[in-house]
């Protein structure tokens, strides 16, 4: 099992070597990049907005219930919700959700291209399939995931505020003050740094699984599932490492 892991790791780095090369045509790369930003990034906005709004709301309700004490001002509920969203929910949980949506899309689309010989067709034409197909996906994720996470932070905070106000669980003015109280901008830097790492993990690992599919439609599905599991493990592991490095 350990041998298989290291063989896979070696194959992953070799794969990255063939992906991170100068594109054959910058014009075609630009076209592919725009297509991938639309497919992987823009299409994820509704999901991110929906999840963030409601998770923000749930976070406010849970925090308000747990800090329901006359000696704890509502300002601190706002602080707790803000930190929860900025530090962990938006960068990590939303990335895990994107690993499911975007990652499985990448691995299954590449896997389908592999089993239908479309990658061989590219190779025969003299086009590096890894570079042409995977590089725009990685760049699109690196560019657009931080945008999605900023979106998620705003929507989470909005959802938290609306829930608190609507359910009359907090004083909205005091709660809102908590969002701005002793705000540390470094936490946003931390969140976006994590997001960039996670974007690379999601796009490259899912691409590796899709690119190396052998067989037919069943294997494409299996590769997609394996990719999501591997990405989730890696994201959780790197979340711990990055938090140790950046917040200690």
């Amino acid at each position, binding site marked *: 099992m350990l041998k298989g892991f290291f063989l896979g790791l070696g194959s992953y780095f070799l794969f990255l070597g063939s992906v991170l090369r100068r594109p*054959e*045509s910058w*014009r*075609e790369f630009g076209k592919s990049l725009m297509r991938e930003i639309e497919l992987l990034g823009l299409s994820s906005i509704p999901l991110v907005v929906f999840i963030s709004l409601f998770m923000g709301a749930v976070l406010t309700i849970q925090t308000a219930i747990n800090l329901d004490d006359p000696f704890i001002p509502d300002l601190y509920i706002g602080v707790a919700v803000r930190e929860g969203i900025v530090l962990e929910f938006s960068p990590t949980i939303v990335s895990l959700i994107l690993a499911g949506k975007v990652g499985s899309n990448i691995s299954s689309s590449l896997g*389908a291209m592999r089993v*239908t*010989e*479309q990658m*061989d*067709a590219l*190779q*025969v*034409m*003299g*086009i590096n399939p890894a570079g042409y197909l995977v590089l725009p996906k990685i760049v699109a994720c690196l560019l657009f995931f931080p945008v999605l996470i900023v979106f998620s932070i705003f929507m989470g905070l909005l959802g938290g505020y609306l829930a608190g106000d609507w359910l009359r669980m907090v004083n909205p003015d005091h709660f809102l003050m908590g969002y701005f109280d002793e705000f540390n901008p470094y936490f946003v830097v931390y969140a976006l740094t994590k997001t960039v790492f996670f974007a690379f993990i999601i796009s490259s690992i899912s691409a590796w699984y899709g690119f190396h599919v052998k067989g037919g439609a069943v294997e494409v599905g299996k590769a997609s599932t394996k990719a999501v599991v591997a990405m989730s493990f890696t994201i959780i592991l790197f979340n711990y490492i990055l938090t140790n490095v950046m917040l200690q």
Partner: protein
Amino acid sequence: MIEVRGIKKSFGDQEVLKGIDMQLQRGQCNLIIGSSGSGKTVLLKSIVGLVKPDSGQVLLDGRDWTGMPERERKVLRQEMGMVFQASALFTSLTVEENVRFPLDFFSSLPLTEKNARIAFCLDRVRIPQSALRKNVAELSGGMQKRVAIARAIALNPKYLFCDEPNSGLDPETSVVIDQLIQELTREFGMTTVVNTHDMNSVLEIGDHVVLLRHGYKVWEGSGPEILKATNQEVVDYVFVSALFKRVRAALT
């Protein structure tokens, strides 16, 4: 001309190609035939560079393709067109975009000339104008093969490779595809290599036929000659079906 010299290829312990030598002539339809597992797909993939042979050489008009640096191989690849067994069209693109694809990458033609070339290629394989904006997944198997041929000839290649082009097609459409491959070979003076196990194709377009068996070349000749061959390997491969048994009986 494509010259294959002593190509060997193994996968693990299994030796698939056991030293193949052959010459494939320019302006002719060269057919590689053989039963499943005989090594014809591995041989074709070795010739086009999708599989790296363990030993041996492939010479494209005297140029050592197997020993060439990657940069030179990339340039030479623009002289190749390939039609895959499952067409391998880009399913996210339309018919027109599929044919435009190699031109966008490798041709410096102005847009009007590119459009003219696309129109010529699609017209040549008899794809109607009404199909240009269709997604390739909406086409029938036969039409997909024709679009794949149009894409393969877009850059006016010197070498055309077809891996089982009749696979999954009805007999009538198979004949249409065979004739199209033959016409284009003559018209553009290409060296065409077709991998097939369809005996109708052998008789229809086989200018030069190579029979593989268990990784060896066991017979070489023209399409019509195969019916008169006395080689036991040929007899075992060709005269299996009732139809060809009757043909052989009629001939003898």
